[in-house]
């Protein structure tokens, strides 16, 4: 069944994400939350997270592009990103956030910019995987609901 294949694919994807630390235990908690009474929870949260993270990264990028950087603000955003990424289980992103905060606290602009790039990379990659994940999920659901 196409659905079975898709499910297998999804599983593989998730497993690899866990293995590579893109996701951690927290994501499993989210998976637990998605059930009959809360369908589509994961896709909803992930979508919220991705959108929000994009927004924050843009804001940070903007702040860092200024001649005089307001490190406090940057720090605040990073803090928020850290919170949200850890809440969805986006481990790698969260880890880079920690690093980012340290650099911020030192008011190291270059370091911040470099770390920003790093976070960008991590997030983009995660985002891609999430998209695939969500797509697969959607397809699976579509197929399943047809039955």
């Amino acid at each position, binding site marked *: 069944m196409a659905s079975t294949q898709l499910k297998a694919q999804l599983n593989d994807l998730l497993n690899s994400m866990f293995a590579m630390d893109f996701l951690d235990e927290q994501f499993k908690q989210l998976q637990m939350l998605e059930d009959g009474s809360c369908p589509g929870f994961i896709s909803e949260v992930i979508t919220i997270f991705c959108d929000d993270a994009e927004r924050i990264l843009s804001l940070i990028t903007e702040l860092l592009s200024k001649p005089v950087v307001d490190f406090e603000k940057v720090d605040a955003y990073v803090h928020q990103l850290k*919170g949200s990424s850890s809440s969805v289980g986006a481990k790698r992103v969260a880890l880079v956030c920690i690093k980012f905060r340290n650099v911020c606290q030192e008011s190291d602009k270059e370091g911040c910019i470099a770390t920003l790039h790093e976070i960008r990379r991590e997030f983009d990659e995660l985002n891609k995987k999430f998209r695939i994940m969500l797509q697969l999920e959607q397809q699976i659901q579509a197929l399943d609901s047809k039955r």
Partner: protein
Amino acid sequence: MDRADADEEVQFPAGLRVLVVDDDVTCLRVLQAMLRKCRYEVTTCSQATAALALLRESRDSFHLVISDVHMPDMDGFKLLELVGLEMDLPVIMMSADARTNIVMKGIKHGACDYLIKPVRMEELKNIWQHVVRKKWTDNNRDVEHSGSFEEGDRTIHNNNTNINNNNSNKRVAEDAEYASSANDGGAPDGSGGWKSSQKKKRCTVKEEEEGETESADPNSSKKPRVVWSVELHQQFVNAVNQLGIEKAVPKRILELMNVPGLTRENVASHLQKFRLYLKRLSGVTQHHPGLPNPFCGPVSTNIKGGPLGRLDFETLVASGHIPPQALAAFEEELFTQNGSKQPVREIAFGQPLLTCGPPTTLTRQFPQSNSSNITINPSLDMPSSFSNWPSNNDLAQIIHHQQQQQQQVVGSGVSVPQPSASLNVQPSCLVIPSSQQMNTYQSSENTILASQSQSQGSGFQTGRGSLVQSPMMLPSQSLSSLQRVGPSSQSYQVKQGPSVITSQPSISGNSGYTNAGSVVDYNNSLISTQPKNLRFGVGQIVDEELNSMTAVSNNNSFSMPGMMSGMVNSGFGFNGARMSDNNRQGRRNNLGFVGKGTCLPSRFAVDEIESPTNLPNFSQIGAGDLVNPENFGLDGQI
């Protein structure tokens, strides 16, 4: 999780109403889902100001608040303070920031707990404990006439009898133990913690209680609970003012107040809370330990009455410049949009606070019409520091100004301390004649509001939240923070780890949540057939009718609704129910919520459980074991 079992009955603490505040939408959504999974009723808010407004609008709507620390529109700690002061609700802080000093700050500000993100489900399952514990603790505290807390007022301490001291000390210790045992993730059974602390409490209060055998709940003390009505509090404040805060000793205050039925212990207890509140205000605003000094700023020469003492604010309030009722009314006005009066919450003690209108910008919340009426002399919080004590004129101007541009959380300024202490800031004219009973507090408050056009509030409001409002800060909040979080109870509070709340499934927290198994576990101890366990101190609704609850509790099936109602209304009705057998003896049980004014009609009330509405009207105090959810009225004490 035994879903099956859980589904069989509504298990406590299902239905717990939680308000989550976090500017991070992702976290908000995750928390919402988790809390729902725990069968709690969740309301989310991404803005602190909106949350505060929501809380003010309907103080009884929530049992617990979970708030993020870093928020753009308001500092989480500030929100914490305000909620504690005004609404006396347990607040759990949460953050991705696990630094010890920040966690400590949360604790010091009175947070019941501090969760580190990412928050796990296990941690959330346990949050109901805080509601229970808080109510119980508050209840106990009120019952045990003062006693000295770690930062206890020396004067009071000295004046208190040994019994009081011992009790309070023990109580603090017990709370600590209770807290720690409850929080010990590792404790094999939360119930053990409950029981042991129960026992301890039992011993402790033995002195006061007359053979309350079942429950250690100090509430079952023979003394009816005193409800500090607005009037009563006003009298208290006047007396304190007259004597001067430094010289105000319970005995003298009692004499001055000249209220029949009031005991020195009642006064001492109240005074202690008052001082703590002030201290807390000052501590919060200026990080001053010790007695609230911050308020002392340039002392306003307008303060009439006795020596200012250290707390200008308190003196001001005490002196009647800011009658408690004024505060309440003020708050009402302030936060009520254009006169839509918020229903006055029942506040046995102090005043609840501010009823907030719909979340709007602060400016809107300040009834413009009131601006001119501000006559508060005390240094209402000026935008930034308590130490500004503007003159009356200045104050009015400032207030007016602020009203117009106040963007801050209105509430912050006006925090009515918990019921007991509310120094309502209101124009003195609002003082309600002492003849009014507590029960009518609500109506009287309304009256006040109606008649009062002054919004002293704005003055109060300002600033940032200066807790100008009532010096009597929520005793529970401060006390609880002291108590619970204080040295003695630290164990349960300060957990630096990710989850401050023990998240062990074995912990009782589990019980609350659905699993019948775990519930039984914990619930048994809690509620179980033993009344004592149930003593959530919170207002035991002890009553004949409540006895029916025993049936419920006996089965360990707390109908959550009932429980909740109990909880809401008066602290766990079930407690009361159970107690009735034991306590009752014509004794008044402490209504757990005395004065907390959180009497929510139990929506969850099960038939067996007496919902507040079903309960006899306790306004007549003295009805042994009667707890009036509405107002924990003068339980016959006065």
